[in-house]
Every structure is written in structure tokens, then in C-alpha cells.
């Protein structure tokens, strides 16, 4: 793929700065497309935007959506499974949760999912994904960037590279996290070797949503405008001395875009304008769900405004011990908000065009080792099986795709590595992994690293 190089725009900057600034901004916006300009998909596709709910730590499949009665029979008996990290004596751990079939489609959900059953028939539960990595950062990198090394472009970066962004005044790829960054930090939403425009922009949970988005309090917007006009004056004269150097104009333009973003971003993230009813529906009035609810509502607003890819990281799923307490509280924190998100998207007619994904970086084991010398009722990391939910954007509704073995240890049916999942996600967005390539360090690189296949079973 090639991007058009930006035109020289000296004639526009020649208008004289103060008066010209507004007109110039307008003209530039209408002029030739920048790297984030929207582009046509490679093939027809329903999905226009993605909201990825990333459950950092690795949710347990058997305690959420993939119940295994057999495991309860084996509870506290010795496990001789090998090839896992845990060494020494291992024992099986039955699920502490009851489970039931929900919706018309009869999806399995453990008891703490109290709200999600309302949208069960919109969901597709995929049980065949194989994470391949056993430790958090590698697995996080793998799920997010297609590579375990943490230096490659993230899924959201590839998506924007392929499709551009509908709203030029907002970043095309937005990331929300808890106060603490997930392991591996911003490498999880990096542009890697793709141009910097494609990197994920993190909306910070407190303080300034984007680092240094606004000037300090004693400098007003009017002050900023005047400063930018003075800057344009300096830059214009400089450009006159160095004609033929297109980067100068591009850099001048980036200041105007920044100025527009300063105005647009606070509006999008200000949830005060949302009706109380909506805020309540997302759980923003309860302590346990307030944060994730806020992020889910924000995600909807961002997608509405044309943001292509939104990712929310929610941690605490790494239940090596006290699984009952850990997973029930985690489920509770996301259950109502994500249900509200899916309902809200549907009511607004956005669900068909928005793909919602709920996943972790890997699954959990059916057994555990003794921690500190006692039976710890938790689970280890599982690179061979996991579970995820997909909704909207042209995936099957009310479906279970794939299966794990009888104790949830290994993906057994419709089993695919992460790269196939990535190829499928791109496919749903109208992008072909084999054609969505970028020439870097002497070869064409792609999200799946070396190709993969579409998981057809997931597609409606």
C-alpha cells in the first residue's frame, strides 16, 4: 500500500496567519487526504468499527462460558497433565460456580453473569482459540500485535492503516486502561513499524485524557490561538527560504490538527451530557461497575464519532488462587456494563457495524499446583485453550463455535491459533491479511506474521 505524499501547501499558508487561520484549517481539511483519511475496504464487509474488551490476566473458560461437569467430579484429585509451567504435585479444580443455559440459543453462562443473558442471543462464544504463550506479556503482545516480541503494530493500528479513520479530529485508535497499565504497557497498542499516525492513543482514566492535551490553566484557548498564529508566521517565513521540502507543511498542519483535537476530545469524553438513565444502565452509579461502565459508554460515543478501533483493558483475571472470590468480583465488574454496551449499540442500530470482542490473553488450566504448600483453589495459565465472546459486525448470533476437551484443557474443535483469529477479524473488517502488508526492514510484513486462515465458522 502506498499513501499519497502530502501536497505542499505554501499557497494556503501564504494567506496571512491571523485572519487566514480559520480559512486555512477549513481548506486543509477538504484538501488531499492524510494518512488517516478513510479508505475503502478490500472486500464488502459489515464491520466498520471494533470495540475490544480485553480481560487482562486471562479469564477462566470453565468458570465463565464453557462449563465442564467432568472437572467437578475430578475436584482435588491428582492431575498428571504435563507441558505446563507448574511443577510438582498438581490437582484438578472443579468450578466453584453453578452454570446454566441462557437465551433462546442456550449459551452457557456461570451464575455470576446476571445481566449478560439478556443479550445472549447476540453473542457468539468461540472456544477454539489457542494462545500459544504461557506468560502475560508475551501472550498480551501476541493477542494484540500478532507477535510475542512486543515490537509489532497492534491490531488497531493495522485496522486504521487499512481503513483510515472517519473523524480526522479524533485519533483512529483509542485505548482505555485502568489506572495501572497492563503488562508490557503501551507496546500493546503500538504502531510498531507502521507510521506513527496509527498508534493507539490512550485516554487516561484520570487527569488529562491525552498527555498534555490542554495548555496549563493560566493559558486560555485564545492565548493558544495567538501563539499558533505567531508560530505560523515564523514557519511561513522559514518555508519561503526552504521551498521544496514538503515535511515543513506537514508539520505545520499537525499543529492545526492538534488545535482541532483540543476542542473535540473533551466533548467526546464528557459523559455529563448523557442521560442519567443511560449512565445507570452502564452501571456508572455503582462502585463495582462505575469504571468499566464509564469506559464502555465512552467506547460507544467514540465509535459513534467515527473512531475505528477502541480497546478497553480490565485487569485482575489472573486467579491462581481464590478463584471464587476473584472471578466472581471480576465478572460482576464487567457484566452489567458490557451488557448495556451491546444493548445500546443494538438500539442505536450500530451493532451490525460494530464488532464487540471480549477476550483475555489466554485461558486457564483445569488444574492447579500447590501454592505455598497448600491446596490453592485457582488455576494456572493455559496456552492451549481459552474462551471469548464476539458480537455484532457480521459474526454468528447466539452461537457456540468450537469446543474444548472434556476438562477444558485443550481446544479440540474448530481449534485455531491467534493468527487465524486475527485474519478473521481483519476479514470481518473487509481487509485481507495477505494484502494488508507493509514493507519494513526488507520484507512485506503482515499482522499474522506469515499468513493464516479465516475461521469461517464464526461468520454469519
Amino acid at each position: 500500500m502506498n499513501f499519497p505524499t502530502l501536497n505542499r501547501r505554501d499557497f494556503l499558508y501564504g494567506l496571512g496567519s491571523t485572519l487566514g487561520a480559520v480559512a486555512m484549517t477549513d481548506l486543509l481539511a477538504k484538501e488531499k487526504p492524510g494518512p488517516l483519511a478513510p479508505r475503502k475496504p478490500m472486500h464488502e464487509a459489515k464491520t466498520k468499527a471494533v470495540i475490544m474488551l480485553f480481560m487482562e490476566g486471562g479469564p477462566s473458560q470453565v468458570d465463565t462460558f464453557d462449563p465442564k461437569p467432568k472437572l467437578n467430579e475430578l475436584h482435588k484429585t491428582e492431575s498428571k497433565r504435563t507441558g505446563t509451567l507448574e511443577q510438582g504435585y498438581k490437582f484438578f479444580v472443579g468450578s466453584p460456580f453453578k452454570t446454566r443455559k441462557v437465551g433462546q440459543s442456550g449459551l452457557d453462562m456461570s451464575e455470576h453473569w446476571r445481566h449478560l443473558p439478556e443479550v445472549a442471543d447476540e453473542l457468539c462464544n468461540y472456544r477454539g482459540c489457542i494462545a500459544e504463550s504461557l506468560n502475560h506479556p508475551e501472550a498480551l503482545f501476541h493477542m494484540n500485535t500478532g507477535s510475542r516480541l512486543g515490537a509489532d503494530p497492534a491490531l488497531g493500528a493495522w485496522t486504521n492503516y487499512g481503513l483510515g479513520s472517519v473523524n480526522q479530529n479524533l485519533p483512529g485508535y483509542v485505548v482505555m486502561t485502568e489506572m495501572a497499565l497492563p503488562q508490557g504497557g503501551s507496546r500493546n497498542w503500538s504502531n510498531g513499524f507502521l507510521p506513527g499516525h496509527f498508534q493507539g492513543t490512550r485516554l487516561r482514566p484520570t487527569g488529562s485524557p491525552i498527555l498534555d492535551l490542554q495548555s496549563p490553566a493560566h493559558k486560555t484557548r485564545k492565548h493558544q490561538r495567538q501563539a499558533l498564529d505567531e508560530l505560523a508566521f515564523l514557519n511561513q517565513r522559514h518555508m519561503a527560504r526552504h521551498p521544496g521540502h514538503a515535511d515543513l507543511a506537514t508539520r505545520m498542519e499537525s499543529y492545526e490538527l492538534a488545535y482541532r483535537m483540543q476542542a473535540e476530545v473533551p466533548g467526546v469524553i464528557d459523559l455529563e451530557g448523557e442521560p442519567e438513565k443511560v449512565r445507570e444502565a452502564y452501571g456508572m452509579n455503582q462502585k463495582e461497575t462505575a469504571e468499566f461502565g464509564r469506559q464502555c459508554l465512552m467506547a460507544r460515543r467514540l465509535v459513534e464519532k467515527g473512531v475505528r478501533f477502541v480497546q478497553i483493558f480490565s485487569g485482575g483475571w489472573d486467579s491462581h488462587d481464590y478463584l471464587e472470590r476473584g472471578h466472581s468480583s471480576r465478572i460482576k465488574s464487567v457484566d452489567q456494563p458490557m451488557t448495556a454496551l451491546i444493548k445500546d449499540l443494538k438500539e442505536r442500530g450500530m451493532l451490525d457495524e460494530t464488532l464487540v470482542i471480549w477476550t483475555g490473553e489466554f485461558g486457564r488450566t483445569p488444574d492447579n499446583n500447590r501454592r505455598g504448600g497448600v491446596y490453592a483453589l485457582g488455576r494456572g495459565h493455559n496456552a492451549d485453550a481459552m474462551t471469548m465472546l464476539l458480537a455484532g459486525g457480521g459474526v454468528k448470533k447466539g452461537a457456540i463455535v468450537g469446543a474444548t476437551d472434556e476438562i477444558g484443557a485443550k481446544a479440540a474443535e474448530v481449534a485455531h491459533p491467534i493468527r487465524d483469529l486475527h485474519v478473521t477479524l481483519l476479514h470481518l473488517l473487509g481487509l485481507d491479511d495477505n494484502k494488508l502488508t507493509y514493507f519494513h526492514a526488507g520484507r512485506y510484513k503482515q499482522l499474522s506474521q506469515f499468513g493464516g486462515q479465516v475461521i469461517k465458522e464464526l461468520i454469519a
Partner: protein
Amino acid sequence: MKTFFCSLVCFPILLFGQDKAEQNKEGERLFSLKVRSILESKCFACHGAEGKKIKGEFNLTTREGLLKGGETADDVLVPFHPEKSLLLTAIEWKDEDYEMPPKENDRLTEKQIAQVRRWIKLGAPWPNKERQKKHVLAERSKERTEDGVILKTSGGLSEDWTYRRYKDEDVWAFQPVKKPAVPKGAHPVDFFIDKKLKTAGFQGAPVAHFRALAKRAYYDLTGLPPTPFEIYQFRLAWDKDPEKAWSDLIDKLLASPHYGERWGQHWLDVGRYADTGGYSNDYERSNAWRYRDYVIRSFNEDKPYDEFVMEQLAGDELWDQQPKGKRDPELLVASSFLRMGPWDPAMTLVPQARQIYLDDVVNSVGQTFLSTTMRCFKCHDHKFDPLPTRDYYRMYAAFAGTQLAERPAPFLKSENLVGLQQGRSATKRLLAFATEKHNALYNKQEAAARKWFEARGKKYLDENARRSLPDEEKPPRLVGLSPVEQGRKKVRRQDEWIWKRRMERYQPMVQGVYNGPTPKSLNARSMRMPKKLPANQKLAATRILLGGALEAPDEKVTPGVLSAIAVPVSKNEEDPYALPDKLSDRRLGLAKWIAHPKNPLTSRSIVNRVWQHHFGKPLAGNPNNFGAKGAKPTHPELLDWLAADFVENGWKFKRLHRLIMTSQVYRQSDSHPQTDKLALSDPNNDLFAYRIPRRISAEELRDSLLKATGELNDAIGGLPVRPEINMEVALQPRMIQFSIAPAYQPSPTPAERNRRTIYAYRVRGQADPFLEIFNQPNPNDSCDERVSESVAPQAFTLLNSSIMSDRAIALALRAQKEFDNLHLQVKRVVQLAFGRVPDKVEWERLKQYVTEMQAYHAQNKPVPIKYPTTITRSLVEELTGQPFEYEEILPVFENYHADKKPADVSVNTRALADLCLLLFNSNEFMYVY
């Protein structure tokens, strides 16, 4: 899906002018030499590999299979009729339902398609194995055919690979360096560049303005701008004798200690320097700074490149060979190169952790020294280059005994140890705090445990002693602690580890390597060399891992080097590319081969990098990849001339810089009289017709700010320093395994903070957002070229960050201290930022702006800034899902010498600082011409 009708009968049609026997012979030959391997490599994986499910019910491995067709069509192959054969439609991608092979990257070339077409046209003969072999053998006996040349290597996994042919232009890098002649009196750089320019009908741009030249030379050689006075001095000399002035300037800058900082940075980009190990723990590599300083020192001392190579690859082996008592610790420091990649074996089985390390180090060595991406032939023979997977594992074997350890190595006289004592006591305090907190919780737990034992009338056993008891015979884990305390105990224990580890910073140690067997367990928290290594160690043989998988070991290999370049390392004629098997000599053998004067990859690789950093673009477009898929050199003769000359003259960098910089090409202006014409015919400036301006790098930006404000402390080397970074990021919690990493605490005084950026503490898991946004590379990946695109968040940083505000105020204060009226203050700040005085129009307008801002700031009061001395962390205990809080101390802010903030300075200073901020934001400040 389209419907395909069966074609009933196919009549062979004679081709004009060729009788049937001849046709058949040509067809058989074509099949044996080309078509068979096309089918085999592009089709068989899905349509016919043995024992696998055949896709589309379609078997391509026999002529019968082809003639029979598949589930959706049966006229796949219609002999003599390519236009009717679906096989051809599919490989041409003419029908979207039949695009084969389905991956864009695997598509057949035009030439391959033509060969298949011709073969069908000739009746699609399919000779038996024996006849195929005859054709193949006849072909192999010819070294060179129209398809290219056979390169002799140690051999691929298949004969097809071993005897495949290469285009000369694709294997240019593997051929010996030939030094072309340069006419007497001509400057070699100008000679080769002009030759090509002339052919294209152009002339080079005229010489640049003296000020542009001065800035160019300062930035290129030191990464710092000249002061206004230095520009003035250069101008005086330039007016007298431009040639001498230029030559003297180059000498002066090459002798500057800042030269090593600038060129060391380029090297560290490729080598992936950081002060931590990355991955989930991101443990500090406490002594990595000694390697950073070794690199800087080596450039400053003009260490011959071949020595530089050998020390980094086998410094420890060279050290072993020195007589006891006279061993040079610098050699151990140099070997830290082998420790630069991100690595942590946590939660990974030992064989996998070793494989991750070895793959990383092999690839790093290949990219860094040989401009060869080794990853490409880890799983299979290289798809495009003469690099068999055997050679990958032979090089892998050279590192098979390389073990990682922090090793003792006395500090050197040349090392800067300023701040060692102070740093030690600051770290001690944080360690003491963590220990105290941990002990309190431990004691509380143990008190409860004691009670538990007493209640049962049993003897008390402490946590360690009771670990192995069965559950019924000991108190529950974390007994007596509330859920909040349980979480805290884990955090404090982790803190204790972290600070203990950081105490190592103050020990005379290096991030080193040694040769030996792989330890039974690996933990990046503490890597130590065993007290005694067995004599005559033997390692298990390295094997080729098929598909790169540990589970698929194949043939054994001995240590060796790349066989495609004809530089043997052994007298053994059977296997001239074998390295000594002895554990203690493997890496040194490899290093000697890499640093061999005849190794064409090494010398081309390094001169290409030097050229790149002088001109903003390399001669060969991918400095880390010289293979067929890398960009070909624009000036191969020049590259070879420079490489040969570099080696002949003792691998000396400073001589090479001088040579390049004294050319007319280097001195060209950025504007060219034929700009528009060149933009059309040579948009990438491959002709080097003019100077490409470059945006300064992240480090140059920060350093230039400090230089302009006069705040720069230009001391050389030493412990990592901690500049102030965005405070939100500094204090923001960062997950590591089991806990949150301690907050980033800047160094306490401006003098410590305002060191050059190369000395800034580099944490893999926490980039300085200021540097990151200006494209400081991610140290997890080798960076052979900085990018510099302009994105909007850069504007946020440059306009609104406190770091920029601090620098703007510092510049304003400097000008106010030097001059007492606004007129001269405005002139001075422009001069310090741009290296020139403002012209009249600018001067008036900028003065007017500051005056307006004075009125503005009189009305708008800033808020004072406070630094916290403690911070409350909240964390969800990952085991229990329970949130808990704990307090972290930030002792540095108890006695912190902050930079002057808006609230600390006058209205007039703030107004002048507004102007300074704009100057720092301007393109004139950001670009070097």
C-alpha cells in the same frame, strides 16, 4: 461460483516450426527444471503433500491428478491449450474464485506463469523421475545460466534449494568487495556521485550557506547545535579560507568527546540498549550503563572497528586468554552486547527460555554486524538469499554455551563514578522502607502461626521450615493477615527484591556472559556464574530445529559461519566454514570471521551505516538487511570503494567521517536549481543531488533545548540519570509480575537531570513519553533508521508539557540575565534558538507579541506546582480479585530542586517565555539543513 463445463476431447495441435519430439524434449526439460518445483513449492502444501488431506479434492502431484481435476472443475489441465486450462487461470489470478496460491505474498511471478503456460502449450509432458533427474543434473553442471549463478553453501534441506540460482544483483552483498579505480586527484565520493548525476543529466546542488554547514557538521558529529559564538568563529575562518575553515571544523568536532555520544547512540539503537530487561518483571540491568559508556569511549578513542566487533562478541573469551592479574575488565564490559536484548525466563521452561535467548542473540548479531536478518532462515532455508537453515543453526551452535551472568569487573579509571555514593544511600533508604514494611507483615503472620501451633500443642516452625508439611499440619497461608494485608505483603516483598537488585548498580559488576552448560534453573532477578566450571566441558550437540520448533530436532550441526561468502575459517577442506568445537573458542572464532578483512558483509554493513547518518539515507536502503529483499545500493561502486578503503586503512571511523565530509556532495545545499525536475525523476533523491533536511531526533531535541537555555551539564558517561518526565506518567502505576513497579523518581538537582539524553535511564516498560513521541525507538527491536513523521500529539507535547514550559522559562531567564531591555532580549532568544539574529520584520513582530503577552500574563496568574512525597497505590490483588491500597514513598521530592515554574517567575519572564516556547516549536529549530 462459476460452473465449469467439461471439455470433451483434447486434440493435440502441432506447433509450427518445431517437430513433436523436439517439443516434447523442451517440455520435459521445462518441467524437470522449472514447472515441477513451481508446483512443488506453490501448490503441493495444500494439493497433495503426502499424508495430508488434499484440499478441493484436487491432487496436483501427478499428471493424472491434474488431468482429472477437482471438486469444482475438471478442465484444470488441457494439454496444448493453456487458455483452456484452469490451472493457468488460477495462477494468473484472473478469476476471483480461483486465485492460487491464495496468498498475495506467494503469487507466482510473471516469469513462472509464462513457464507454466509454455509447458502446457508443449503438451504438458511429465517425464518419470529418472528422466527428470537427467535434465536436472545436466543443468546443475553449468555454474551460470540465464537463470543466474549457483552459489556454493553448506547446503540446504533440499537439493533444489542447494542448486538454485541467484541473480547477480540479488546476491551483491555476498560477493567479495572490489575496489574500483578513482581518477587521480578526484574525491572518491564526488567522483561516484557525480558520475551517476551526469548520466541522469543533473548537477549537484551548490554549496550550502556557512551557517547551515556549521549546524550540519555539529549535529552530525556531536548531536548538538553550535552556539552563536561557535557559528561566529566559523564564519570568521570561512571568510578567510572556506576550505581550511571546513577542514578545521571537522577535526575539532571529531576530537570532541561529544562525538562518541552521538555515534554511540546510533550503535545503541541497533544494539537495543536499555537499563532494564523487559518482559513481565522488567528487572533492572543495573550495570548496563557501563556498556553504554564503553561504546561512547570506543568511538571517542577511534577504536578500529574490527577490534570493536571482537570485543563485543567475545570480550569474555579474550579476557580469559589474558594473563591473570593483567586482565582488562573493559573486555567483560564489551561483552554486554550479548545481553542487550529483552529477556526474562520467568514462567518459561528452561529449554524454551534458552531458545528465545539464542534466537535473539543470533538475529541480533546477524543484523548488527552482517546486515543479515537471521530470523528469515530459522525455520527453513532462506527463501531468497543463499542462507541455508543449516548455517542458522551453525551460528546458533556458536552461542550454545553462552550463559548470562552478572560478573564482577573492577571499575575503570576512565569510568565516571560521580553520584555513586549518593545513589547508593538513596537506594538503601528505599530498600530499608520496603524491608521494614515487609518484616512487620511477616511478623504479624508469624505471630498468628505461632498461636496456631501452640493451640495444637505443636512446635512452631517458621514459613520456610513448614513449607513442605501437608496442609493439615500447618496454618493456612498468610495466616492472621486481612485480605488487604495479604496484598500488601506481596507488594512489599517484591519491592524488597527490586531495591536489593538495584543496589547492584553500585557494585563493580557487568552484565556479562561466560561459557558453560545451561544452569538447571534461570531467574533474571539474579544471574550468577557458578563458582567452579567443570574442565573440558562438553555441550550436547546443536541440531537443526525443523520449523524452528524445539519439538522437531533434526540433523546435528557443528558450530560454523555463513557459508555463502567465500571466507573460510578452517583449513579443513571438507568443511571450511566450521568453527572450533571447543566451547571456549566458538564465539571468538565467529568474531574473527566477522571482523575478517575479506568479509564483505561486515565492511559494507558498517560503512553503509556511517554514510546513512551523514546523509539521512543509506546507500543500501535497508541497513539491517542486505538480502535480495532489501533495497539494492544506489551506488554499489561507491559503497565498495568506501568499504575497501575503510578496511585497508585500519577500520578507522574518524578517517571515514573526514573523507565523507570533505566531499562536495556532503556540503551541498538543500535547494537545487532544478527542484521540480528532480522531484519527478528522482523523488527519493537517490542521486544525492541535494541535501535532504532532517528533523532532529528525540535526543537531539532535548539536548538542543538544554544547550540553548545554557542548562546542559555536558559531563561524559556515568550512572544513568533521571530527567524529569511527565509527572502523570512518572507516578502512574505500572504493572509488573505480582505487583506495581516503583514510581519513577527524577534526579534531585538540575545539574544531575540536565545531562545529555543518552545518559537517561532507559526502562523498557516505561518509555519517557517526550522521547517516545519524537520517535525514540522501542529498545525491544533493533532500529536501523529513525523515523520522524509529524503527528498531532507532538504538538501537544511541545506546546503544553511542563518540560517545554520549564525550558522556555529557562531561556527567558537567561536572556533577561544577559540583557536588560526587551529589544535585546528578543534578539538574544532568537539567536540562541536559531543560531542567527532576527531580521527586522521578525524582530518587530516578535517584540510586539511579547509586549501583548506581558499584558496577558498580568491578568492570568499561574498555579504553583507541588511535588508529592508519598503516593497511595491501589491495586486489585490478582489472586483474590480484592482491591487494596498501600503507600509508596518518594524521598527525592523531600529535598527537590525543581526547575523554575510559571508561578515562580515574573509576568515579564512568562511573556518572554511564551516567545521562547514558539521558537522551540518552530520548524527552524526542529530541522537541520
